[in-house]
């Protein structure tokens, strides 16, 4: 199974994501922002960083790149897409995920390990159940998730909220840390699963989300 990791000018965690994919036993494929295909990959990670210097708004310019057109196609075909940090911002700007990300309520960049409460069983979270806690680091300036009240009701009702912060680090509405699209195959979160895969560096709970990405890609491939 190969996994595409997008690289925009200004991406920072693309190399970490490529490494994490390899650690998970899959084949990482680096996809340049100007490329219009995903090199045959069956899954995509849109990584963290400051694509295009966060000019205009974080993720706004990256959402318009040729590589993102290819991501839309894969998502429409049911392929799994995971947006991490800036990647989450890109996916919301691209309209592939609901809601927006605003500057942190305290207006500071914040790095810390955060505890995340699992909201429901999901293909994204193999082996864990509602109520479990994952520990994964965050590091961002613009991670305050927001959606209008009516939209939040819809997200709750449809089970699109996968993870909530146990202690909210950024002011996100209803402590939301990770959401999916209605179909469930596109997910985004501000915490960094690619930084939580190596026991020498800390928690390995990030492997759960990456395994979820791989499992879904395998399932989609089998269905075709």
């Amino acid at each position, binding site marked *: 199974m190969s996994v595409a990791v997008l690289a925009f000018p200004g991406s920072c965690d693309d190399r970490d994501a490529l490494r994490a994919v390899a650690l998970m036993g899959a084949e990482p494929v680096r996809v340049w922002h100007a490329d219009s295909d995903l090199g045959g990959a069956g899954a995509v990670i849109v990584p963290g960083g*400051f694509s295009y210097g966060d000019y205009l708004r974080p993720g706004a310019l990256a959402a318009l790149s040729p590589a993102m057109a290819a991501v839309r196609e894969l998502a429409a075909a049911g392929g799994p897409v995971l947006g991490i940090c800036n990647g989450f911002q890109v996916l919301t700007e691209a309209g592939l995920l609901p809601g927006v990300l605003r500057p942190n309520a305290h207006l500071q960049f*914040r790095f810390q390990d955060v505890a995340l409460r699992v909201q429901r069983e999901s293909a994204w979270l193999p082996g864990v159940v509602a109520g479990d806690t994952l520990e994964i680091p965050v590091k961002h300036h613009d991670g305050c998730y927001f959606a209008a009240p009516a939209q939040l009701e819809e997200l709750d009702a449809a089970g699109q909220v996968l993870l909530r912060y146990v202690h909210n680090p950024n002011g996100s509405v209803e402590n939301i840390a990770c959401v999916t699209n209605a179909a469930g195959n596109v997910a985004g979160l501000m915490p960094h699963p690619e930084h939580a895969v190596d026991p020498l560096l800390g928690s390995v709970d990030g492997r759960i989300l990456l395994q979820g990405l791989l499992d879904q890609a395998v399932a989609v491939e089998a269905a075709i």
Partner: protein
Amino acid sequence: MSTIESTPLHRSLGLTDAEFERIRELLEREPNDFELAVFSLLWSEHCAYKHSRRLLAAFPTTGERVLQGPGENAGVIDVGDGLAVALKVESHNHPSAVEPFQGAATGVGGILRDIFAMGARPIAILDSLRFGELDAERQRHLFARVVEGVGHYGNCVGVANIGGEVEFEAAYEHNCLVNAMCVGVLPADRLQSAGAAGPGNLLVLYGSKTGRDGIGGASVLASQGFEEGSEAKRPSVQIGDPFTGKKLIECTLELLDQGLIVSLQDLGAAGLASSTSEMAASGGVGLDVDLSAVPVREEGMEPFEIMISESQERMAAIVEPSSWDAVAAVCRRWEVDATVIGEVTETGRLRCFHGGEAVGDIPVETLTEAAPRYEVARERPARLVESAAVAEDPATPPEAALRALLAAPGTASRRWVTRQYDQLVGSGTVVRPGGDAAVVRLTPSDRAIAVSLDGNGRRTWLDPRRGGMSAVCEAARNVACTGARPAAVTNCLNFGNPEHADIGYELAEAIGGMADACRALGLPVVSGNVSLYNEHDGRPIPPTPVVGVVGVLDDAALAVRAGFRDEGDVVLLAGAGASALDGSDYQKVILGETAGRIPEPDLGAERDLHAFLAAAAGRRLLRSAHDVGGGGLAVAVAEAAMAGNIGVRVGKVADLFGEGDGRVVISARRADVAALRKLAGPVPLQRLGAVGGGEIAVGPARIALAAAVDLYEGALPRIMEGGA
């Protein structure tokens, strides 16, 4: 260029009459205004080190690991497995005092360029900061904005910030210090040089366009003190663009991967003027530069403005003509402007043209080797005393003193700072900041480096020579606490005006002390920076040498952390270095003064202690190790307890709060203590107590673990934001 009425141009450019005469002699004619501007910058303190160069010769600079010593953009050492590490620390004090956010951000941008100019991928940033006391709103503003600026640049370019230090003293109120260190990793066989070579090869400028921003910024700001009205200097502060900086890093590394570069130099202080003359001088060649080919941001820039602009995010490279198309293609892919602006010649001269006309023609060595070197006058300051003299305050119970120290800005947790920095990008941060040294794995290798950046102006003010020794010992000891073997030093010397004899004494003595310590510990100095004229209205900062040490750990999995681990582990004090309250945090916080004389570090004992720690870590005998630093033994024990989130019981100790070198609090499994004692050889091991419980008890000072954490972690958030 206008001449201020009745003031000769050379003087308004900061050159003395004697220096101007010397330039006329060297050129054998009158310099034109363009040439004079170039001389004034290249002969400034910042570029020429004219007051420090002779003293710096005291540093040992060679060693079996050294691949590149001082003189290039950064020093480089061999760390094994075919890997090398580039390191350098540099100041951005004066720009940060004028505009703290941009000053700090461009300080980080500049040190990053020094590292990738050596062919290395930057993997870690550290910052050493000094401000006035935080009870003043202006100081809180400077502190907050500098931290934001350091974080902004480093976070955006994706280089982990792994620590550093910050101190607060009234003497830094009008002259804050912002020193940034960067470490990079490269294949040992890909070391780059700045030396231009190969007549006919092309001089390529790539990165940002050149503007009027920062004309004479670093070189002018760093070469004079501050008086009232420094707001007028705002136009000469550079503005950083980390997005372009990030593209520049990736673009440069790709150019190097493809073998397209002959030599490489970043554009920092004095812009093209210094980078072209340094490239030509270190390659022993000449350069012809066409200034009208330089892409500019605005119309009508004068040739001298283009030559000395300090616009950020620019690099200069020498490439072979046959490589130019490939170079241009890589730069296009990264959306980085690249332009041929000149070529290497055999003339040994820096010749500049604009619109086909010659605007300057200067023999290169007159700008570099022939720059003046002054002997500084030295006079021992009257404040220095002969012996330690400070005693504990009988009216303050030890428990109250411990509480006060845990919550003092100088001693409390730095998490408020480090949580604003990305500590993890690069997937290498094995030991995060907050303990002694951070440890970064050189992924994909298992090998790791430990890095620490330390200095203590208050203690150095009491004894410049011992303070210099102590700064080296402390940084190296912090690295040794992780189990790494200290391998190389970079340093930043922050001092007042060297033309004053008392400052000359401080500078010479501190350098002498540092050199002695480096020699005794077997540590070559491979790079550094000197920041002089740090003063306000004639009042200098305390002498503040800041020392960065990189150590090598063969296996990242062997890294030792500061925090205690398990109930029942034995706590020991390794080393028996002399301690005193003179210059200590206790003296400052409890007694409200700084006086006396700090103890002399025992350099032989220090070396033995470091060797013991590495050996014990290699045999997995250490559960934790933490340096005894600010706040003395009581604070060190409390910090190890808080870092491990477990209590500790330590019996009676002779000196709770004294500070000095050569001591480390370690813990070990009960069963391993005998093996540790055997391994210790000449290093004294004193049993202090045991890990466990929910209380920190150090002799008579006792505090609940949770209460200590609240004081320690809550201090800076409460001061800076009025809450945790």
